[in-house]
C-alpha cells in the first residue's frame, strides 16, 4: 500500500509540474514584447526573436543578429524577405520601403515568430 501511495504521489507531482509549466508557458506567449524605439535590430537568442514586435519608420533597415549557438533564419510569412541560414553572430539586414506589418518566422524552428511594423 505504501508503494502504491508513492506512485500516486509521484504521478500527482508530475501532473502539478506539467500544469505549472503550461501556465508559465502560456503567460510568456501572451506577454507580447513590443518596441517602438529607434532601434532597428532584432536579436535572436534562446529560440526567440527580441523584440518580438519591432516598429520602425519607412525606409529603415532592420538587422537580425543570431546570438544563439544554433542556426536560425528570418523568413517573411508573405515572402517579402528571406535570410540565408545564420550561424552564431551572423546577421541579415532588410530595408523596408513600404508601410505595413511584416510577420516573419524561423524556417528551421517555425514556432519562433516575430513581426516588423513599418509606419
Amino acid at each position, binding site marked *: 500500500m505504501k508503494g502504491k501511495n508513492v506512485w500516486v504521489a509521484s504521478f500527482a507531482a508530475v501532473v502539478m509540474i506539467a500544469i505549472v*509549466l*503550461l501556465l*508559465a*508557458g502560456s*503567460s*510568456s*506567449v501572451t506577454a507580447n514584447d513590443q518596441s517602438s524605439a529607434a532601434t532597428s535590430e532584432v536579436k535572436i537568442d*534562446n*529560440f*526567440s526573436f527580441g523584440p518580438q514586435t519591432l516598429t520602425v519608420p519607412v525606409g529603415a533597415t532592420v538587422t537580425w543578429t543570431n546570438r*544563439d*549557438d*544554433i*542556426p536560425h533564419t528570418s523568413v517573411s510569412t508573405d515572402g517579402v524577405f528571406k535570410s540565408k*541560414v545564420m550561424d552564431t553572430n551572423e546577421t541579415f539586414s532588410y530595408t523596408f520601403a513600404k508601410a505595413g506589418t511584416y510577420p516573419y518566422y524561423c*524556417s*528551421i*524552428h517555425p*514556432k519562433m515568430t516575430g513581426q516588423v511594423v513599418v509606419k
Partner: protein
Amino acid sequence: MFYLFPIKGFLGTGATFAADLNLVVQLLMGTALIAGAYLAKQKHYKAHGICQTTVLLLNLLMIGLVMWPSFQQQMKPALSKVLHKRYYEVAAIHAVLGIAAELLGLYIVIVAGTNVLPQWLRFKHWQWWMRTELALWAIVLLSGVGTYCV
C-alpha cells in the same frame, strides 16, 4: 501488444521476441541519431530535427511497450534484494541513464519545437546540450546491449 508475438527470441540470446525486437530497433535508432547529427553538420537542419524527433518518439513507444513493462515485471519486485548482482546493476544503471536521456531529449524537442516553456526554463548553450544528449544516448545504448551480455 507483444503477447501477440512468439515468446522465443530470434537473436539466440535467450531473451524474448519483444526484447530481441527492441534491441534491433534500438541499434537502428542509434544509427539514425548519428545520421541525424551528420545531417546537422551538413546544414540540413529540418531533416536533422525530423530525424532526431522521430527517434525520440519511437523510443518513447519502445519504453512504453517493451522496456517499462519488462522493468516492472522482472526488475522492480526484486530490486532491493538483487541489486548487487551484475545483471541487475547493469539494468538499473541502464534504466536511470535511459530515463535521463529520454527526458533531456524531450526537453530539447519541446524547447526547439514549441513555445510551451518560458524563457527562464530554457537552457543556454544548446549545441553542448545536444552533444551531451547524443553521448548519453550512446552510453544508454551500450548499457542496454550490456544487459544481454552479463
